[in-house]
C-alpha cells in the first residue's frame, strides 16, 4: 500500500515539475493576470489530484499538456462563474430593503449552496431553470409560473422534473467521486 502511494506521489511530483511552469504561462495568457494564473495553476493540479486515484490513471495520460489544459479550462470556467455569482449575490444583498442580520458565516454557507445549485443547473434551458427555481426555492404556484414563462402547466411540470432529475444525478456524481 505504502509503496503504491510513494510511486503515485513520485509520478505526480514529476508531472508537476515538468508542466506547472508551462501551465502558469498558458493561463496567464488567457487571464491577462499572473496572480490569478498562479492560483488557478494550483487549483488545476489539485483537481487533477482529486480525480486520479491510482498510478495507473496517471500513466494513462498520454498528452499531459492537453489534459492539463482541459482541466484548466474547467477550473477557469468555475472560477469566473463563482466570481459572477459573488457579484450578483452582493448586489442582491445590497438591494434588500431591510438588510438581514445574518452572520458572515451563514452568508458564506448560503453562497456555497448557491454555487452548488448553479452548477447543478448547468446546461438547462432558461425556462427549465426558472421553473425549477421558482417552484423549489420560492414555492410559486405552477399556474403562475406557466403565466410567467408563457407555457402550459404540463410543461412546467416537465421542466421541474427534468431539472430535478439533473440535480439528483449531479449530487450523486459528486458524492461518488
Amino acid at each position, binding site marked *: 500500500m505504502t509503496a503504491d502511494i510513494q510511486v503515485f506521489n513520485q509520478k505526480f511530483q514529476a508531472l508537476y515539475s515538468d508542466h506547472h511552469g508551462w501551465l502558469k504561462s498558458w493561463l496567464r495568457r488567457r487571464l491577462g493576470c499572473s496572480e490569478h494564473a498562479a492560483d488557478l495553476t494550483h487549483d488545476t493540479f489539485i483537481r487533477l489530484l482529486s480525480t486520479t486515484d491510482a498510478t495507473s490513471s496517471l500513466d494513462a495520460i498520454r498528452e499531459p499538456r492537453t489534459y492539463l489544459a482541459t482541466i484548466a479550462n474547467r477550473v477557469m470556467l468555475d472560477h*469566473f462563474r463563482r466570481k459572477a455569482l459573488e457579484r450578483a449575490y452582493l448586489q442582491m444583498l445590497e*438591494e434588500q430593503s431591510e438588510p438581514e442580520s445574518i452572520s458572515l458565516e451563514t452568508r458564506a454557507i*448560503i453562497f456555497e*449552496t448557491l454555487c452548488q445549485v448553479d452548477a447543478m443547473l448547468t*446546461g438547462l434551458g432558461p425556462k427549465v431553470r426558472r421553473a425549477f427555481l421558482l*417552484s423549489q426555492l420560492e414555492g410559486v404556484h405552477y399556474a403562475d409560473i406557466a403565466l410567467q414563462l408563457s407555457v402550459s402547466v404540463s410543461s412546467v411540470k*416537465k421542466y421541474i422534473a427534468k431539472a430535478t432529475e439533473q440535480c439528483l444525478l449531479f449530487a450523486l456524481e459528486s458524492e461518488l467521486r
Partner: protein
Amino acid sequence: MSTDLSSSQREALRAAAQWLALLGSETSDIAERQAWRNWLQKPVNQWAWERIELLQQNLQTLPGKLAVDTLELTARRQGHQRRSVLKGIVFLAGAGTLGWSSSRCLPIAAWRADHRTATGEIRSFALPDGSKISLNTDSAIDVRFDARQRLVLLRRGEIFIETAHDVVASPRPFLVKTEQVQIHALGTQFSVRQFDEQTRVSVQVDRVEVSLPIAKTLSMQQQIIEAGYSAEFLRDGIISTGNINANDSAWRNRMLVADNWRLDKFLNELGRYRNGILHCDTAVADHRISGAFRIDDTDQALLAITKLFPVRVDYRTRYWALVRPAKKV
C-alpha cells in the same frame, strides 16, 4: 460517474423527479398521493425519494427570492451554457457582457418589480417621501426607501423623477440605480432610461451626479450632469454627452418627438408603445422624419408615415407590422 448507478436506480431517480413535480402542483390530489405511496413501496424507489429529500433540505437553506434573483442574474450575464470562456474570450473584471438577453425577453427582476407599466401605459404616482415619479411604457422599478437612503432601482424602461425635500431628521440621498450606473439626485427633475446595454440620463432641472465603477482601477468615476444636458453610459464608461432633446420629456405629454431621425430609429421608438413587433425594412430605413406624434394612437402615426414616404405597412398578424417600400404602380 453516473455509470456507477444501475439502470433501475436511474429509472427510480427519473420517476422520483416526476413525482416531485406532480405532487408539488397546487392541483395535486389524493389519488396522486396514493399512487405515489404505492410507488414508494419498492426499496429502490424509497432510496430515490430519500435523495429528493436530501436535495430539498439543501435548497431550504436558501433565502428564496434573493437566491432566485442571484442565480438568474448570473445566468443572464454569463449565459446559460458558459460558452464565453471556452471560446478563449475572457472578461476578468467586467460583468461578462456576452449572453445579455435582448430587451424582448422580460428579465425576472422586471417581472416581479414593485411597480410596472404595460406596453403603451404611462403612469405617475408619488413615492413615500413625496417625490413624484412617472413610468413610461413597459417599465419596471423597485422602490427601496430605508433609514439611510431613498433608492429607486430601474429594472427596465424609462422614468422621470421630480425629487422632494426629505423631511426627516437627517435627510437621505435620493439615488437611482440602473444596470450600468448609480445616479445621485442633487435636488432635481431628471429622467433615466435603461437600454439593453446602456443607460441614458437627462436632466431638466438642477443637476445629478452619476457614478460608475471603473473595473481596471476598482475605483468610481463621477460625472455631474447639469440641467439641459444628457449623457449615455455603458457599464464601464461614458459614451456620449449632449444637449437634452425634446423627446426626453415629450412622453410625459404622451408625445413622441422626432428630430430628423432615421425611419428605423423612429419605428423602434414608436414600437415601444405598441404590443408586438414593428419592423422597418432596410430599404426604407434611411428616410428622415421630423415631427410630433401622439403615443396613444400609433396606428395614426403609421398612417402618417405612409403619406410622408413611399412606404406601406403590412400587417402580417394583428401584432406584427412591417414597414416596407410601397408597391410601384
